[in-house]
């Protein structure tokens, strides 16, 4: 992918993180990798912002963390979704779908003569 990376909209990162973690417990490095892979590198996500998002979501009780061993046999902090986090993810997903659909309705409308 050449071309310019897209800035992540404020507040969007949280839902992306929740979604990514919903696939299973993961440490920060893996989560960053997964998001990049899923978005084909289109989104520019700073590591620092990602970690901030993880800690913020944990403070809100949507994620919980635990220390475990990573695939490379190191001590790593694993995050996983809490029940409240799962509900939050559903709400956010729904909101995003409606939002995107509304935006596309406008953008895709036939030109007015």
């Amino acid at each position, binding site marked *: 992918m050449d071309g310019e990376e897209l800035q992540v909209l404020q507040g969007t990162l949280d839902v992306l993180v929740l979604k990514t973690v919903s696939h299973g417990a993961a440490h920060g490095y893996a989560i960053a990798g997964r998001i990049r892979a899923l978005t084909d590198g289109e989104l520019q996500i*700073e590591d620092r912002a990602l*970690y901030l998002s993880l800690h913020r979501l944990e403070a809100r009780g949507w994620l919980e963390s635990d220390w475990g061993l990573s695939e490379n046999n190191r001590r790593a902090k694993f995050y996983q979704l809490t029940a409240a986090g799962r509900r939050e993810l559903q709400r956010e997903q729904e909101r995003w779908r409606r939002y995107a659909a509304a935006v596309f309705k406008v953008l895709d409308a036939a030109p007015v003569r």
Partner: protein
Amino acid sequence: MGMIEGIRRQLRLRLSASDTEQEVADELRFHIDTRVEELVRGGATEAEARARAHREFGDVAAAQAELSAVDRRRVQGERRAELISDLVQDMHFAVRTLLRARTFAVTAALTLALAVGVTTGLVAVVDQTLLRPLPFAAPDELVMLNGVALPERDVRGGSYAEVSDWGSHTNSFTAVSIYNALPYNLSDGAGAVHVRGEMVSASYLDLLGVRPQLGRDLRPSDDVYGAEPVVLISHGLWQTQFGGARDVIGRSVRLDATSATIIGILPAGFRGLSFEADVWLPLLPYAGPTMAEQRGGRFLGALARLRPGVSAAVAEQDAQRAAAALAERYPDTNRDRSVDVVTLRESYLRSGQALTDTRTLLLVVAGAVALLLLIAVVNVMNLQLVRGLSRSGEVAVRHALGAGRGRIVRQLMTESLVLTLAGGTLGIGLAIAGTRAVVALLPSDVLPPYAVVAVDARVIAIALTVVVVAGVLAGLVPAFRTSGERTASELRGSRSGGPRGALLQHGLVVGEVALAVVLLSTAALMVRSLSAQLAIDTGFDASNVTAGRVMLIGDAYDTPGRTRFIEAVTERLRRVPGVADVAIGSDAPLRGNFSASFIAPADRPDSALRYYRHRVTPSYFSALGIPVLRGRGLAETDRDGTHTVVVVSEAFAQRVFENGDAVGRRLVLGNADTVVVVGVAGNVRQRVLTTSLFDPGEDPDVYFAWAQQPVGGLDIIVRGRHAPIEAGIMYAVIQDIAPEIPLFNVEPLATTLSVQTASARFGSLLLGSFGLMGLALAAVGLYGVMAFLVHARRREIAVRMAIGAAPQGVLAIVLKRGLALILAGSALGILLALAAGRVFANLLYGVRPVDLPSLAAAVLTLAACALAATLVPALRAVRTDPQLVLRAE
């Protein structure tokens, strides 16, 4: 992850600030390291890879700070939530455990409730009586100047000229005002009311920081002989008597015989120093022309305000120096006279009946209440300890499961606090409901007039503090003791109570027993003092006698008018069915009206003595059941125009004449008139029940025939045949004969008499109930400890029984221990009681503070109860089948 989860929670909750930072650092290092690894796998050198990883991540330090801040806040929040949930859990657990141990909880809470209730009531009384500022401007500067007679410093008051000199010949006071509380008949044409008044100087209201709400204050020019008599009235009187009319200023009313102009109305709530006055007036316009100058007639109090920075002690020296100068200048009237300066509060606390030294009474009651509270707290402590042992297994299990010692202490403390708060709240509730009732039992003179006792927010706050402190105290020791049990040995089941614990418990029981002995012996002293007072021969028969007072003042009441009045009243009352006898006199016994003068034997005019003067009708002696011992009583023929005669009291006869041989002897009065003694009457306790008339400090009584000294202030005394007559009958008769004369202070003499012993009865009741409460509490405490002792030694007892020891022998072992505690406690209690006795010696009558019967009664009662408390668990121990115990171990 479940198991790890649990441990992780435990771990995470213990995170400190530095721990969170470390976690964040670890997490980020993992990120960088993993990236470096990946890059190295892709072919980069280690150094290149690390540099690139850092470049990609950005400012690691800043990120670390940011993340740590988020985590710290999260951990704090979690900790708080944990604390609250722990507390809720602790409370829940405490309530549940307490509900399970219902007998224990109810006993402890009820004893505390009693003690706290009593404490709260007392705090309310002490606060109102001793602590709250008096309701006057800068009340700490206010003092009373009491004119005293040396050498005993009996308070006799001052004359008008004297009070003026105390003010002008000293530098310590900003102003001095005369003060004299008197009753008046006030009439405004429509009818008469009996009101309380205060005779004061122009500076009086200013001294107290009060201004009239309407009209004007007194001026010095109002207080001059010949000035137009003026009067200030209270807000209440203005409302009730004058309907609150604004034009009342300038209106004329009659005060006794004098017509006076109302010049001002005082603000609502102000009732003067007496807290009951409705009128205020200057003295001189209402008095004779010599009042301003004469020095010998002393009947005035004096109120003064200290100059800022001058202490009462310094002011007293100043005033006494001035008094000494007056004595030199006017030896005839002022020799052996001086003045005492007492703070206003002190003067309130000193006034009142004998044996009602308010401060001492409060001190004694406060001491008793403190003891009671202490016993209750010790008891809860004790019960907790005992229970702690029976639940040491539970504590040990919790300990082994990982609960920290701090956590267990907190749990046990929560339990104590829940218990004390429950007891305390109940106690405060009791106090709110009961204080009014108890205060109503208080004799009227015990509390100063400004004290309106009620349990208010301030008192409740103090009481709650006491409760919490008590709760912490009661919980702390047992909590640490119980939590400190050696876990392993507890779990193994060998429950040998440590010697340290036993010592502590024994100490507590000894203390409880000692405190209970103090309470009981004090109560016994009070009861003995009361019975001594009830046994006093008053010298008159109060049963079925009622007395009421009138003031015969005014133009219509010259001597013939007064004579007509008393003849009519006597005659009318005698005709009322059920009336046995009627008498009229200047004063019936113990009603607080008396006057004194000087008299000397005619052959020794220099040896004058002070005596109390009574002017009575002939039937006075028979109506009051006072025996005439020698000679005759007064007769109808002793009237104006015949020679003045007197009947003297036995004490007078004994003091003045050899062998009390008084009949026929002559006496000289202050005005040089001679009178002849016609009879000797039995001694009567006229003024204070507890003062013996043979006490050399007590001046004796002399009875004149009213007809020969027709004074206007009179007690009407009616003896009923089988019962006291209705007050209503007396009101009706007086109303019918003289509607303009109000009758007041109508009271059966039996009531008057009982007021004299009210203080003693109250003290006996209060301390008696405290003593019983203390006794019950100590017994409960002792029972608990003995029960525990038996429990702890049940194995030893079982072994002894199993190898054939006689039950009596085993019983003896237990009893011996109990007895040792009781004896130690009693000995300590006796010592404390002896020390405490000194404090209230002056509340006692007819019994000394070191009183063997009282101590013996206290110790024996306590020992009997305590022994019973010991016997129950001891007997239970002996009756248990040893096999059961041994197998269970």
